[in-house]
């Protein structure tokens, strides 16, 4: 098999696996910090137990997110040496800054948070939780600045056979980077909120520690409502930015083949890549696509056929991923709105069906995050840096396909086992009643 395909599979699998753990870290870190702050402010022991309960789950999740992140940093050099050489002047700096500004903060204060319960004051302890949360979110900023540059390169010149920075800040503050960052962290907040709500729902259904889990559910619901709405609005702006900067990706996301002025949006559509058309188009909303993409009903949306065949991304997978993500995003707004309403009316405990629904909804925001990355990365193809460097020109020349197969098998084997154990432990500790969890010495 050819090295490009193998390297792509390896990156896709290791990145998607890494991103099972990252969004929860992004969201739950803030939620735990909020819980602990509530404890410091109210001196109510319930919040302390809540902090420790969700804190433990946070740590089980964090461990795997951390170690699988190192893989990605190494992988650029190992499998994508020509890419690294071409973009290193630009791409390396955000990675180095990420480590210096964020990872140290995150890991050092996580150590203080885990082991410092009796070593620092309550306030400093809560502050550590906030610093961990800021650290994880700052790290997201820098890695997404780097990714945004791959999507929409700015602030560079081509010199000495590679891309070189002429304006660092242009890459940091370009709208693509800011929108991508905000969209991604809020998606993480949704994951965290649904996690807290779902686990609280489980215990509420069993009538365990009702006071604690009602409070936790409320924190999750409020934070989740904010996050779900924010993800939705920012996502809309992000898609408009994609329309402006990556027309091939947008065309694939919407599976639009022919360029159209005032393009409609079909609620149901089946792409037919082979014949460069859609096999089925149903329930069209006139001009809707032009409105969504350009915020103008008469805007022209370029179709895939207006691009050379070898510049087009895979359509079906991009389209389905995008559609499903948007549908899920809409569902999250509705669910959190209803949760908010039930809490306001104090009817949460009466609606057992809703609690059950929220328990089984835990995986959905994860799925939405993964789909989002598939849209972002598959939709960028055949480019590794949009318009500048093709993915097929980016791999390591010194590495053979046998080597990539070996590491690919290694990662799949290792990650499957670790993923299984981690999820098993999350289930185990999520089911425990908090008092038991706090009193237990070993961890």
């Amino acid at each position, binding site marked *: 098999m050819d090295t490009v395909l193998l390297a792509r599979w390896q990156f896709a699998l290791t990145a998607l696996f890494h991103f099972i753990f990252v969004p929860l870290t992004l969201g739950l870190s803030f939620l735990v910090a909020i819980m602990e702050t509530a404890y410091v402010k109210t001196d109510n022991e319930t919040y302390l137990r809540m902090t420790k309960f969700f804190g433990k789950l946070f*740590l*089980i999740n964090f*461990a*795997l997110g951390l*170690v699988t*992140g*190192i*893989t990605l*940093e*190494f992988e*650029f*050099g*190992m499998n994508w*040496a020509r890419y*690294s*050489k071409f*973009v*290193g*002047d*630009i791409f*390396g700096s955000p*990675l*180095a*800054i*990420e*480590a*210096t*500004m964020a*990872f*140290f903060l995150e*890991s*050092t*204060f996580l150590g*203080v948070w*885990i*082991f*410092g319960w*009796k*070593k*620092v004051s309550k306030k400093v302890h809560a502050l550590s939780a906030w610093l961990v949360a800021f650290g994880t979110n700052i790290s997201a900023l820098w890695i997404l600045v780097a990714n945004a540059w791959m999507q929409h390169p700015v602030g560079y010149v081509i010199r000495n056979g590679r891309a*070189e*920075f*002429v304006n*660092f800040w242009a890459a940091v503050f370009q709208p693509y980077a800011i929108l991508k960052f905000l969209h991604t962290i809020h998606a993480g907040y949704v994951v965290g909120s649904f996690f807290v709500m779902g686990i609280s729902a489980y215990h509420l259904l069993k009538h365990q520690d009702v006071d604690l889990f009602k409070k936790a559910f409320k924190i999750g619901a409020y934070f989740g409502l904010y996050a779900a709405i924010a993800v939705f609005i920012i996502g809309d702006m992000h898609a408009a930015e994609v329309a402006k900067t990556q027309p091939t990706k947008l065309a694939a996301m919407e599976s639009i083949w022919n360029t159209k002025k005032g393009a409609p949006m079909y609620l149901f559509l089946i792409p037919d890549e082979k014949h460069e058309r859609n096999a089925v188009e149903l329930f069209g909303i006139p001009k809707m696509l032009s409105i969504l993409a350009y915020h103008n009903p008469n805007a022209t949306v370029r179709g895939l056929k207006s691009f050379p065949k070898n510049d087009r991304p895979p359509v079906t997978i991009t389209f389905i991923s995008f559609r499903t993500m948007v549908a899920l995003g809409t569902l999250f707004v509705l669910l959190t709105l209803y949760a908010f309403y039930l809490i306001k009316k104090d009817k949460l405990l009466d609606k057992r069906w809703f609690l059950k629904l929220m328990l089984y909804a835990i995986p959905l925001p994860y799925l939405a995050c993964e789909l989002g990355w598939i849209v972002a990365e598959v939709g960028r193809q055949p480019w590794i840096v949009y318009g500048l460097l093709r993915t097929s020109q980016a791999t*390591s020349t*010194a*590495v053979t396909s046998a080597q990539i197969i*070996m*590491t690919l098998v*290694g990662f799949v084997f290792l990650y499957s086992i*670790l993923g299984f*154990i981690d999820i098993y*432990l999350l289930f*185990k500790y999520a089911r425990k009643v908090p008092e038991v969890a*706090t*009193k*237990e*010495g*070993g*961890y």
Partner: protein
Amino acid sequence: MLNVIWFALWGLLWAVYFMLDGFDFGVGILHPFIAKDDLERRMVINTIGPVWDGNEVWLITAGGATFAAFPTTYAYMFSYLYTPLFFILASLILRGVSFEFRGKIESEGWKKFWDFIIFLFSLIPAILFGVAFGNIFEGLPFDANGYHGTLFTLLNPYGLLTGIFFLLLFLEHGALWLSFKASNSVAERAKSAAKKTWPILLIVAVLFLIYTKFATNLYNNYINYPMWFIVLLIAVISLLLMRVFMSSSFVKAFFSSCVLIVTVVFTGIIGLYPNLIPSSINPAYNLTIFNSSSSQYTLKVMLIVAIIFVPIVIAYQLWAHILFKKAIRKEDLEDKEVETY
């Protein structure tokens, strides 16, 4: 000038990484031998519990800085050293999760399994980092047509000797760390391990210095600029002082070990200058700090970031180390209100 500064910083990042994660590796390798029961094993693991994660970030930073400052070196170093890097990576992953997983299920077999994982996957990277650096000191077989080596060319005598040298440095470092961070019988066993390891370390260090003369060109810079011998001299003095301090203060011995590791790394780095990775086939293809670096603009931006943030990082990491400076006692591990591994 910027290239030289970044070369020094590059060396410093690796040196600090080995100084910090070095004792984690040592502790990980020693723990099944130094601890006799579960409580003692937990004591050993908890001496590094609050800090191992922050220590490992120095590796990520060293990797990131290589990428940012010397992208061509990053691209070649990581793709040429493909297989050892994969094993290092897998080891770091397994070691990292094992601290977290080990205590999560109350079962003898489960804990034994993760104890073994901690041991094995502290041992492998400790050796492999040495093998990798030994090979960088020697130079890798590459020219205009790319790389001509395999995993087995890396496992040459000098590479293996450097691997064993690094292993012993980290073992000694970890034993010294445990001799004042653990308590009672565990600390006693650590002290005796430190004393027993030292003569072997001394012998291997001498062998390394001699073999370096024949296997590498590292000494050329020293002969041309003899003032740099001072770094080598500090390394030798700290190796000797380490043993002297073992009869009075193990904390001081540990700090000597820190100085030793940093100066050993710098002994190699100074010898490499101006190369990052020499070509063992033809010096014309050497990856130098000039032909493999980023643009001056990027180096400048990165330097500003480093000047602002690295001191902040050092400040709060020091604070955290001081916060957890007390030795771990068995009572601490039995306290239900305190979280431990």
